[in-house]
């Protein structure tokens, strides 16, 4: 008969912020590299930032991920990755992937 328990404040949505999906997996339906606005709860924001699923603000994927991660992300999104010589720069790898999208 007691009052309904209050929702944990760490689960209540915070203020809306801009994030970029930084990992190789989609986050809340957004593709890697995509920028989105969301009001995440403080707990979820902290976890997602610390595991590298997202970063705050609007960023380019090649500014967040390593060369190997860019290739892995493209593969997980079904983008065919061309043969890229080892010595190529990260920007060149990002361009090659972008051209194949």
């Amino acid at each position, binding site marked *: 008969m007691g009052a309904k328990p209050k*929702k*944990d404040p760490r689960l209540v949505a915070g203020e809306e912020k801009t994030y970029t999906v930084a990992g*190789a*997996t*989609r986050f809340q339906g957004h593709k890697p590299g995509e920028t989105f606005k969301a009001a995440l709860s403080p707990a979820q924001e902290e976890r*997602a930032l610390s*595991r590298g699923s997202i970063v705050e603000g609007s960023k380019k994927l090649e500014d967040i991920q390593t060369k190997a991660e860019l290739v892995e992300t493209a593969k997980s999104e079904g983008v065919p990755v061309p043969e890229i010589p080892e010595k190529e720069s990260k920007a060149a790898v990002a361009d090659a992937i972008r051209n194949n999208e």
Partner: protein
Amino acid sequence: MKEVLRDVVVEVDGTDLSDHFTQVTVEDSANEVDSTAFGSVYTQAMKGMRTCQITGTVQQDFAAASVHSVLNDLNNQDTPFEVLVTPRSAAVSATNPQFRLAESQLLGYMPLSGGVGDLSTTDVTFTNAGDTGIEVLTA
């Protein structure tokens, strides 16, 4: 229309792990409480406390922000998190309802289990930590 599961979306704490899940079960049930009294011919039962959980089998992946990163993180902390399961990747609707366990918890996690030559998979159980249970969203 009958449904063949090909395109189920499983989102754990915001991260879409669909392409690593191979099996998922959304479960909402109630305890059976015996209410049989003297004079009864048949046993009688009443619905007791409800319970709900989402279980599944997921292919292991140690890449950044992927399976291990997400599940290990959630297993090592105490704050409830959200798990969403949708039959198809299309927009959520009455014919593509989304099952939401808003306050779930992971009470255990096996990062590695299997024999030689096996694909590394792990079974996970997300139990209910809140008062809302599983919600069915249609929009």
